[in-house]
């Protein structure tokens, strides 16, 4: 295994726009909002940026293709801007590009910005994506909830969990995220909900109801990264450094080979295993202080707890019901409200997760602040369970 990038790159500054139905803002406005906060946090001038990575998923309704949307919106000084897209892991890809450039010595200071403007489609839910020419002739005319909902039937069958128990467990996932999101001024959905509300909501895709689905939001998030040495030279102390960045992409195993049981994410287990090794973490359930995971749907978060080796296989639903992932539990998850309540502007989500982990590690999370976190983990899934990309990132206190 490669040596990895543990502690080679530090986060100099981060920013995040208010997420939500941003009728007042276009993608350029959202990017500027996140960027200005990150630049102020970093305390640098635009001319100090060496390169930028820009993530957006649906260019048809968002900012458009290429690097120019970012460069023009931010008036960057003609530096390299690379647009990246990898479904819902796009924001994590932008961060990976910036971090790797710094780790490689190709840039001293690099910027990553992710944005998505979803509320310009005219309806709720994600827009229908362009699937190419072959897929629509073969694949079901499905939706994101319909694809992820399938985890539930396979999970129940594999672990012998009743429909009622699983529905209650995934309801708790959402109740927890709503409670957390209510405390976050930048979150999209800020009303707590009850288990009864979650259980009785209209079905979107069996067994997922309305409250099992994340918010369709507008938003942007940004990160500025550099080396620990440069960060210190710029006057920064108590650095938050990158411990691990891993990405695992389906190769058709799940959708074409008879090995996958449909109840979990094959890629997540690979990415998590590699990330723990890169970060030097041996007992994730004890060592990981907090997580932001890809809770596009409540059932996704539930199986992810097992895929990240925090809950034993088949026991994630019990940990969820026991409150292990609540804000006051063993490993708080979605402290900022998660995709569920902070919202899910696709290209921004990976960076938004890192933003919360960064704030927490710096003790700047306000009402949501956890006690002395050391390692924060983020996790993104793009695509669908049978064919996906999964990114796992771990950041933490320098030297931890």
């Amino acid at each position: 295994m490669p040596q990895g990038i543990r502690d080679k790159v530090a986060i100099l500054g981060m920013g995040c726009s208010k997420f939500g139905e941003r009728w007042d803002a276009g993608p350029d406005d959202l990017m500027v909002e996140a960027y200005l906060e990150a630049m102020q946090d970093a305390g640098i001038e635009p001319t100090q940026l060496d390169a930028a990575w820009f993530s957006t998923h649906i260019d048809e309704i968002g900012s458009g293709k290429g690097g120019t949307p970012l460069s023009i919106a931010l008036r960057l000084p003609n530096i390299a801007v690379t647009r990246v897209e990898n479904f819902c892991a796009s924001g994590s890809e932008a961060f990976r590009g910036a971090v790797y450039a710094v780790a490689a010595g190709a840039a001293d200071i690099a910027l990553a910005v992710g944005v998505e403007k979803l509320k310009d489609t005219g309806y709720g839910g994600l827009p229908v994506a362009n699937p190419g020419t072959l897929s629509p002739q073969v694949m079901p005319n499905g939706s994101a909830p319909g694809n992820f909902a399938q985890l539930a039937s396979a999970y129940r069958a594999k672990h012998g969990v009743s429909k009622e128990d699983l529905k209650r467990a995934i309801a708790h996932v959402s109740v927890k995220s709503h409670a957390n999101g209510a405390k976050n001024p930048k979150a999209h959905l800020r009303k707590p909900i009850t288990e009864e509300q979650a259980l009785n909501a209209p079905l979107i895709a069996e067994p997922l109801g309305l409250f099992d689905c994340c918010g369709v939001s507008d938003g942007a998030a940004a990160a500025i990264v550099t080396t620990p040495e440069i960060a210190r030279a710029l006057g920064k102390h108590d650095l938050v450094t990158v411990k691990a960045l891993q990405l695992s992409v389906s190769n058709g195993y799940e959708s074409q080979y008879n090995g996958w049981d449909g109840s979990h994410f094959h890629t997540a287990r690979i990415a998590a295993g590699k990330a723990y090794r890169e970060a030097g973490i041996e007992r994730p359930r004890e060592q990981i202080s907090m997580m932001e995971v890809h809770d596009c749907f409540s059932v996704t978060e539930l199986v992810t707890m097992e895929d990240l080796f925090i809950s034993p296989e088949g026991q994630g639903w019990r940990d969820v019901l026991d409150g292990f992932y609540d804000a006051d539990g063993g490993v708080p998850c979605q402290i900022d409200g998660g995709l569920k309540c902070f919202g899910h502007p696709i290209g921004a989500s990976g960076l938004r997760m890192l933003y919360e982990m960064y704030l927490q590690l710096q003790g700047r999370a306000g009402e949501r602040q956890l006690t002395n976190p050391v390692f924060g983990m983020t996790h993104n899934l793009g695509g669908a369970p049978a064919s996906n990309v999964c990114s796992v990132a771990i950041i933490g206190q320098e030297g931890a």
Partner: protein
Amino acid sequence: MVGIAAWGAYAPRLRLSRKAVTEANAWVAPNLKAKGKGERSMANWDEDALTMAVEAARDALGSDDDRSHIDSLYFASTTAPFADRLNAGVVSAALTLEKSITASDVTGSQRCGLTALGQALAAGGTALVAVGEHRKARAVSAQELDFGDGAAAFVISDGPGAAEFLGRGSVTDDFVDHFRGDDGGFDYYWEERWIRDEGIVKLVPPAVRKALEVSGLSASDIDHFCFPSTFAGMAATVAKSVGIKPEAVRDNLAAVMGEAGCAHGPIMLAHALEQAKAGEVILVAQFGQGAEALVFRATGEGTRPARGVTGSLADREVETNYLKFLTFNGLVDWEKGMRAEKDNKTALTTLYRNKDMILGLVGGRCRETGVIQFPRTRISVAPNNPAVDTQEPYKFAERRASILSYSADYLTFSMAPPNHYGMVVFDGGGRIMMDITDVSPGDVETGLPVRMVFRIKEVDEKRGFVRYFWKATPDRAAIAAQSAQSTKIQAAE
């Protein structure tokens, strides 16, 4: 000795309650109330003349997916989805017939199903005749109550089979009882009494007599007389005028499925073959700008279909929602929502390049490892042996399968929400994420046995193209067998 080696039939699972129709329309057409009895077969939104013909053909061909013995194909319909694209070509691709076959579309009259059958019998060789009809009628018409949707298929062979072909009689006369222009959606009819007295009564008997004469039989030799007509008692009238005994007149299935146009004579023939004893004589005739009549003698041999007309009629679900019927038949301009706005343009290059995969459900099997996969790819999916260029064609359509995971999706656009789909795993290997059809919420669960059916995938309304693919549907025979087995085990315990 040319004859019918095997036969099959198909009726859509949905059966529209006629009472539901007449009650909904009573305010405007109280005169139709008398027709409010029984049910008619109703194509699901994803079924048409072509998909039903494919299903009937699969019923006739059986579960063996080696179809290299078929050397000609006839597809007959007056409601084929394409006016200028060989519909039989789609049937051929779906059934993975050899490229070297001859294929033709036979159309233009209600007797075209029997015409195709007659042509195949005359031509010799091993032929497949598939007849399907998806009849369109205006709302509040008598036709929407009389008509039904369905298909039948026959394998014709030179050797002895299920029925020996004895003779054929044809009459051709441009008697226009009804017509449909090439851009018309619906039939236009003339007066019933004229059609009956001047048309059927005068044009059908000569065809029947000719067929009998060629066969060397007299009318009294007929044990099964199959004659579809929406006019009550018409078959008996024709039988009497020819001298066929009244007890030979077969039930035209009007009460249980309606009349499936040009497929209905073939369907009645298939039904007769299922019930005829060895040695019994079957005469099937159908009217349409003249008439066609064919005579067969049942042998008691040959291959019986797994489902046939009897099985198809037994597999039914009553539909009492008339509005659903109107919607499925394009008779309601309804709000489909923004999610239906996506462009369904088909890349014809992609379709052709992947024809066996899309229309034939052909995947791959690795020569080295035996790994079975869908789709076939240059590099094998086996994680421990990604062999290159080792995949040979492997057919999935006739394989039994079951559900691994599923959802019922209320968000995505569907003609019959919620849209059911999931990961289907095949006995023997391979898996496909696919649509599940002919199900209601609560029908699907992990482990459910399913079988493959050929259906409409999507309709490109902008360009008038219909896209086809395979879907999973509950294997109700396997489910019944499973539950019988578990009852037996419980009883034993």
